[in-house]
């Protein structure tokens, strides 16, 4: 009990150390390279902008947070479904994979009109855009994991009279969980930028909107204040995902 409490303190402390360390590095870079505020504002300047615009930033942050979560959720769902169905049928994989790969090479501005046409300017078009970015690493990694399942386990399952579905459910899914983890990590890491890209489709709120707007008004500190919040979200999300995966992968070897 006490021990865990201790370690928890230690963890928090380490987190704080890293956080301030990175801020320090940022500061050094900004000053050391003599970068003007409109290129890279220093931490205090950004802190000021953060404080000054706290209410308005907070409001937009909530919107983006919401988009991130929905985008990640939808992306995961999509990725898992695709991975599983491709693992099920080689032919399907042959037809689907090229589409997925192509989908990754479509820039948002080419897609935006269609997204808006179909989903309107509401949150759904943004979530869709975000999901489009997020689903792929999940699908690719998870599919890879599914196809690399230890053959012996599948043979055993077959001798036990398991349907392909049962094999998938009880053997392959679990066996591919580490691979899914890799995919999920990447997905989580790019979820925030996914949301920002989503807002690029045209939105009246969210940190991406704030950044674009501040960028147009040359209010670089505000832009970086929003970016700072976004980074916090990114790291936070990453941390949560890692905890979840640690919990799910209790059985997988981990040298780290």
């Amino acid at each position, binding site marked *: 009990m006490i021990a865990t409490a201790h370690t928890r303190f230690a963890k928090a402390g380490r987190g704080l150390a890293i956080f301030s360390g990175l801020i320090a590095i940022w500061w050094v870079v900004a000053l050391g390279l003599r970068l003007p505020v409109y290129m890279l504002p220093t931490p205090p300047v950004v802190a000021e902008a953060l404080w000054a615009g706290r209410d308005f930033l907070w409001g937009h942050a909530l919107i983006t947070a919401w988009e991130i979560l929905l985008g990640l959720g939808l992306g995961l769902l999509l990725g898992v479904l695709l991975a599983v169905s491709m693992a099920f049928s080689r032919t399907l994989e042959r037809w689907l994979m090229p589409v997925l790969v192509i989908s990754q090479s479509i820039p948002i501005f080419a897609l935006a009109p269609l997204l808006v046409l179909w989903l309107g300017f509401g949150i759904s078009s943004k979530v869709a855009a975000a999901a489009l970015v997020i689903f792929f690493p999940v699908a690719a990694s998870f599919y890879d994991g599914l196809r690399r399942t230890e053959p*012996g*386990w599948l*043979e*055993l*399952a*077959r*001798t*036990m*009279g*398991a349907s392909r579905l*049962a*094999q998938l459910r*009880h*053997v392959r899914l*679990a066996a591919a*969980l580490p691979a899914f983890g890799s995919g999920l990590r990447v997905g989580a890491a790019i979820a925030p930028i996914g949301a920002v890209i989503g807002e690029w489709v045209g939105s009246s709120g969210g940190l991406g909107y704030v950044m674009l707007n501040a960028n147009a008004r040359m209010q670089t500190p505000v832009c970086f204040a929003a970016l700072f919040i976004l980074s916090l979200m990114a790291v936070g999300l990453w941390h949560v995902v890692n905890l979840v995966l640690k919990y799910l992968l*209790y*059985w*997988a070897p981990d040298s780290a």
Partner: protein
Amino acid sequence: MAMQLNSAQPARTDAGSKVAPPGVRVEHLTLRYGENTIFDNLNLRTSGGRLTALLGVSGVGKTSLLKIIAGLIEPTAGCVIGTDGRPVADRIAYMGQQDLLLPWLSVFKNVTLGARLRRETVDRVRAERLLEQVGLAAHHKTLPAALSGGMRQRAAIARTLYERRPIVLMDEPFCALDAITRANIHELAAEMLGGRTVLLITHDPLEAARLGHHLLVLQGCPATAGSPIAVAGEPPRSPDDPNLQKSQGQLLRLLMESQ
């Protein structure tokens, strides 16, 4: 970790073996890996409800044969069929040369995997008795990673015995067990498998002679099956059983020749 054998109920009350289980017929079997021919038109036949011990020098093709019977390897030619004329692949319980325990499942869940795979209700009582009989009662919730080699193998044995199948294929199932544990497991296996068609690969002539109704030696390359030795008396035979001594010697001689 003493073994309670008393609690083991005789196999003939088992669902799987109510109808007399069929023997296995291997016909015109050919298996090639590249230019490496393992079997060339191999024919053999094991009698139903009996335990046939399969021996042979390392690399001769024992595991391959078992896997073909289990339907896990597609032979180059030939077929495997039950003496009742029906295919066997869907009536077997298979224990591979590796334990193949799923690392994310507790010992108990590994043992009852088959039930969950077939969406049957798990027979907790049976599973727990089995774990007790193989001496893993205390390791119920343990993950495979926390087991010793022999414990892993015993878990795999329990998993195989849990399956109520008329035909049981076991690939060196006892090789990682010490003499004493092995002797106990022998008796357990003999009881649980009594009345079923069992094909058991082993490297231990004593083991073969203790448990087998018939002893079969694979030899040569491509592998051919020698004529089976029938061992008198009912397994498990006690170590001082004269039949045992006799057939063991016979077997050793055969193996020597097979080199």
